[in-house]
């Protein structure tokens, strides 16, 4: 009734142990890569923290860092176990550690899986955060004399030049924001007064963009002011001019950059960890049959799960369910089930369940009693 059974003659066990040892070292490298990548992603997000509204996105690099570190530790022990696995004298040393170790390994592999899933699902959260963050940054572009915002101009200029983008959604966002400070506007000029009166908020709006939107690949010198006015410039057509300024919006540029970063590492590392985990489980189960035998070169069976999948899930979920239910049951009933469970501990078939965990014994006995 075991799940995923495989026969292991002696040579195959030896090969499994050796292969697993190599894989575990590869997985250590994978874990280290995961950790380094998480650190890199965290610094990249921190660099652009001024254009992000919230820091929810930090959960992705944090998950990667934790799972990377855990993977290094877990796979180091996996390597040690493999080294000892073929020597029947040394293997029993690990016997008591193996079950909790496997549980730990499963937990941290699922953490890596969660990290990979998060990196896909956080995209919309990141997009919202960037939308708000960039909108504010554009609004404060002109406030180079306000403490706390005086570097906003520099940040936006560097961002637009580095990512080859302009504005939030596109360059027209600059038309709706006053990006020239009042300190540099001549209020005695008629043109300035007209523009300020032309809108409700009294802002100096114009169809121009900052110089950092200029595209160096353009064939002609950059046109930043009077962009929509075809007659202001010779041989210029606003609708067909593509190379003059960057057409992409900075939100889209940043989003695709971070998405590419987050997607690039997950799957390969996860696959490696799953393979290591499965091989370790096979090695453990096949070695257990050898312990205590005189002839260590016999053929044994290895399996992934002792019962089939649904039964194992039930087995592990029951303790959790019982723990939750027990709190609500009255005192009398609790004492009664404890007493009956203690009696049932004498049954031989229960002895096998000792291997799993002590709390499971207590509650599985209860289950057995109900079915009997």
């Amino acid at each position, binding site marked *: 009734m075991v799940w995923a059974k495989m026969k292991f003659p002696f040579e195959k066990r030896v090969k499994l142990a050796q292969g697993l040892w190599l894989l575990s070292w590869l997985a250590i490298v994978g874990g280290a890569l995961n950790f380094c990548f998480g650190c890199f992603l965290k610094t990249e997000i921190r660099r652009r923290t001024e254009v992000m509204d919230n820091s929810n996105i930090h959960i992705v690099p944090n998950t990667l860092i934790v799972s990377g570190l855990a993977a290094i530790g877990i796979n180091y022990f996996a390597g040690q176990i493999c080294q000892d696995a073929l020597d029947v004298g040394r293997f029993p040393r690990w016997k008591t550690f193996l079950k909790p170790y496997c549980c730990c390994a499963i937990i941290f592999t699922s953490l890596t899986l969660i990290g990979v899933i998060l990196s896909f699902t956080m995209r919309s959260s990141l997009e919202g955060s960037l939308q708000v963050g960039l909108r504010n940054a554009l609004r404060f572009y002109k406030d180079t004399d306000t403490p706390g915002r005086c570097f906003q101009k520099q940040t936006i200029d560097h961002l637009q*030049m580095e990512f080859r983008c302009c504005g939030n959604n596109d360059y027209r966002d600059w038309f709706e924001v006053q990006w020239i400070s009042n300190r*540099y506007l001549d209020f005695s*000029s008629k043109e300035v007064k007209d523009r300020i009166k032309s809108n409700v908020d009294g802002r100096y709006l114009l169809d121009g963009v900052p110089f950092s939107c200029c595209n160096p690949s353009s064939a*002609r*010198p950059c046109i930043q002011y009077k962009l929509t006015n075809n007659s202001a*410039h010779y041989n*210029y057509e606003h609708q067909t001019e593509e190379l003059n300024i960057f057409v992409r919006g900075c939100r889209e540029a940043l989003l695709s950059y971070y998405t590419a970063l987050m997607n690039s590492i997950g799957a390969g590392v996860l696959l490696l960890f799953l393979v290591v985990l499965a091989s370790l489980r096979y090695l453990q189960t096949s070695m257990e049959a050898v312990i205590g035998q005189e002839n260590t070169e016999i053929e044994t069976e290895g399996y992934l799960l002792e019962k089939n999948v649904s039964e194992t899930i039930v087995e592990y979920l029951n303790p959790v369910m019982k723990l939750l239910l027990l709190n609500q049951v009255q005192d009398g009933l609790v004492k009664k089930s404890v007493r009956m469970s203690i009696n049932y501990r004498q049954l031989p078939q229960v002895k096998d369940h000792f291997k799993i965990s002590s709390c499971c014994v207590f509650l599985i006995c209860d289950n057995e009693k109900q079915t009997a």
Partner: protein
Amino acid sequence: MAVLRVKFTKGQRDKLAQMLWLLNWVSVMTGIILFSLGLFVKVEFSKKEELMADRDFQPVLNLLIAVGLIACIINLLGGKICYDCVDTNKFLRWKLLILPYIICSFFFTGCMLVGALMCYSMQEELQESLAEGLRDVMRYYKDTDSPGRCFLKHTMDLLQIQFQCCGNRDHRDWFHIQWISNRYLDMSKREVVDRLHSNVEGKYLLDSVPFSCCNTNSPRPCIQYQITNNSAHFNYDYLTEDLNLWKRGCHQALVEYYTKLMHSTGSTGLLIWLFELSILTGVRYLQTAMENVLRQGDPESESDGWLLENSLVETARNNFNILKNLGKINQIDTILPAGQLTMVNGRIQQSCITVL
């Protein structure tokens, strides 16, 4: 009368051999470092080759790369030799090869020294080359429709943005050239025609700079047109405005960058040269000590090691005599009888032992 004679016990000889083996491996690492440094510098030069007129810096760079590579090979061999020197039997295998190896290594370290020193001598040429190159690139800035020059605008803009510089010496260089192509000038306008007539060559000159000269640290939006005209902009004084454009000229920026690069490469080369020389000295001592042990016959005994058996002058004289006599052998062959030939040979043989 030997130069720098040192006594070596068996234990000291063994320790020397082991230490030299380790140092040779370290030297392989430094050879790799020098090789990759040379490669990096070559790539940096090729990235900006459009800005450097005509001068050829490739020989120095190729020398550095070759030196790094050969250093690895020589030190691998040296490591093997030193590893075998502990055992006198194995030493016999290498006996004939060691002296040529030492002489070759000595000349090779000379090449390394030459390469490192050449890195320091490039500055003058670099300055001239960059001045000419930048002048040409700025002149062809507007020719984005001419094949072969269409990328010069892009190159110049990226250079000014990346190195935070403007123009050749400073931003005023842009005032003397036409950087706006005629394709984008409305010849029917009076202002344009006036400007074209205002100078002999009919160039459209103005007191403006391209957008890539704009300083990102400026608190106000960039002023690129009518820079010298204070009344064209509100609250603006051309003479006191510091942060509007990049102050540094691209010539100075590039020269500083490449000089720093070459100087650090040269210093690394010199350090590695000193290291190689010390290893070579160690190998020479080991070789002479092992040979003296063989001559004495007892592998466990003490022996002397030296750099040269006789003083420098005598060694030079002996070698010079050998070379002279080598030239004379062919003549003696035909004239003298056989007995004297052997004697001549014997004399030559004798002198060889004295030197080596």
